[in-house]
């Protein structure tokens, strides 16, 4: 497959390796030390590190600056970009800024509504949506033009991804919706956290039937449960999250001080099973504020060492 950018993630995927990404959330502070530290904790066990963009609509150090910090440390960031806060001028400007710093992978997202965060009274921008942001990045890269039509002297060199939620309703539109994201320009997909493996495999079956797995690299999202409380919370309160009762029962059946270990084991078992699923191209491990566990998970899932890429 033709390598189109300098993205390490693209090279790993297109060389046929099962890729591993993880994510780190920037601090609510102007001190970058913590996110740099988190990046170093996982750097040898992942191919790239997603940096979230004011996730849950809480104001944080910006994704772009955090990506630059990681890049300066020699790590490989994936710039997450939500369309909630910036209009098309600001988004295109940040894409150029990222590319100018050698950041070559990005994930295009809608973003949580600001009502959930620290600024519920803030303006709801959504000038363009995540689908149109995908189109925009691809247009800038492939056509060498801004949305307004003017030429870009040196276009941004970006490998472009999107999110997918195989579990949201209505289930019937989930495969067509992926097809639409691919048509808009998505080259890799990181999914919502996968706990209901049967349903994920059913979605993948639909994906494979339409041949979409040959057009996009699909990386299921993996988030280990730290406790039965977390599992119950995610089942109850997180929209579009599918946590089967058997998983909650299994966590409940072990003593409290063993639950986090059990959560890791469940996540590793999920990766072991999904590795065999046709169309799965890697994993996106979102160990929310539990980055120190990522290396263990990657090793136990047989995904270590990571491939050497120039």
């Amino acid at each position: 497959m033709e390598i189109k950018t300098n993205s390490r993630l693209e090279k790993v995927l297109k060389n046929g390796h099962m890729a591993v990404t993880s994510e780190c959330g920037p601090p609510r502070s102007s001190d970058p030390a913590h996110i740099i530290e988190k990046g170093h904790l996982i750097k040898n066990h992942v191919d790239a590190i997603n940096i979230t963009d004011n996730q849950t609509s809480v104001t944080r150090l910006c994704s772009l600056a955090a990506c630059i910090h990681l890049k300066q440390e020699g790590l490989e960031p994936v710039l997450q970009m939500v369309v909630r806060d910036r209009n098309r001028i600001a988004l295109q400007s940040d894409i150029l800024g990222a590319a100018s710093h050698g950041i070559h992978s990005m994930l295009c997202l809608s973003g949580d509504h600001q009502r959930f965060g620290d600024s519920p009274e803030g303006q709801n921008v959504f000038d363009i949506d995540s689908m149109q942001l995908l189109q925009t990045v691809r247009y800038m890269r492939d056509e060498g033009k801004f949305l307004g039509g003017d030429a870009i002297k040196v276009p941004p060199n970006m490998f472009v991804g999107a999110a997918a939620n195989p579990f949201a309703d209505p289930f019937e539109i989930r495969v067509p919706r992926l097809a639409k994201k691919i048509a808009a320009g998505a080259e890799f997909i990181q999914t919502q956290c996968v706990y209901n493996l049967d349903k994920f495999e059913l979605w993948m079956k639909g994906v494979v039937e339409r041949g979409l797995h040959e057009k996009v690299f699909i990386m299921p999202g993996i988030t280990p449960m730290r406790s039965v409380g977390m599992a119950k919370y995610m089942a109850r309160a997180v929209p579009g999250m599918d946590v089967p009762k058997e998983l909650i029962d299994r966590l409940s059946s072990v003593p409290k001080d063993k639950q986090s270990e059990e959560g890791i084991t469940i996540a590793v078992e999920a990766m072991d099973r999904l590795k065999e699923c046709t169309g799965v191209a890697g994993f996106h491990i979102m160990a929310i504020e539990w980055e120190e566990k990522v290396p263990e998970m990657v090793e136990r899932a047989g995904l270590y060492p990571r491939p050497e890429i120039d």
Partner: protein
Amino acid sequence: MIRSITKPKSIEEIERLLDGLNRIFIIGCGTCVTLTHTGGAPEVAAMKEILLESGKLVTGQIVVPVACDNLTSEILNEEMGKIEQADVLLIMTCAFGVQTVSSQLKKMVVPALDTLFIGKETAYGQFNEICTQCGTCIIGETGGICPVTNCHKGLVNGPCGGTNQGKCEIDSNKDCAWTLIYNRLMELGRLDSMRKLQGPRNFLGEPTPGKYEISKS
């Protein structure tokens, strides 16, 4: 019928806006704010009581039929004696009415209401925004349901990841606009419409402030 939907400002805010202004003329409206119970005759009477209790002097009050109509100035002319005695007009209409009166009378005005949106009464006492007047209507491709208005993110290319059992992630009582659109398109046998990639919206269709002239040709 479309209505301008309003809600009352707090008494504290009104008192702050009226600070130092002691002689007040109150104007209500017989149209939208009467329907929403925010500026009809009963609300104007109640406001008068509140002002009198706080030591203000009310020089007069009137509920005009349609405050945003250009004829409002003629109705107010009949009250000019009482209006001229006032330091300020406290206007219990939507901002269309407040600005109509303000442009006609050149008097200090204080709005008593906040104007929320242009909507319609969908059930008794329940008002909904149906159209945001975006200027680039796409409902011919969404089964007649407007995602620009009905989706909290105004998404035009399908639902976000927060759609939850047919409800919106930010309000479990509110239907996900895109689930409604999906169901409608399925009934109509037009699901293919959802595949269409809508390009970035043209916000020039909705220039602020909006202005439109009927061409003279």
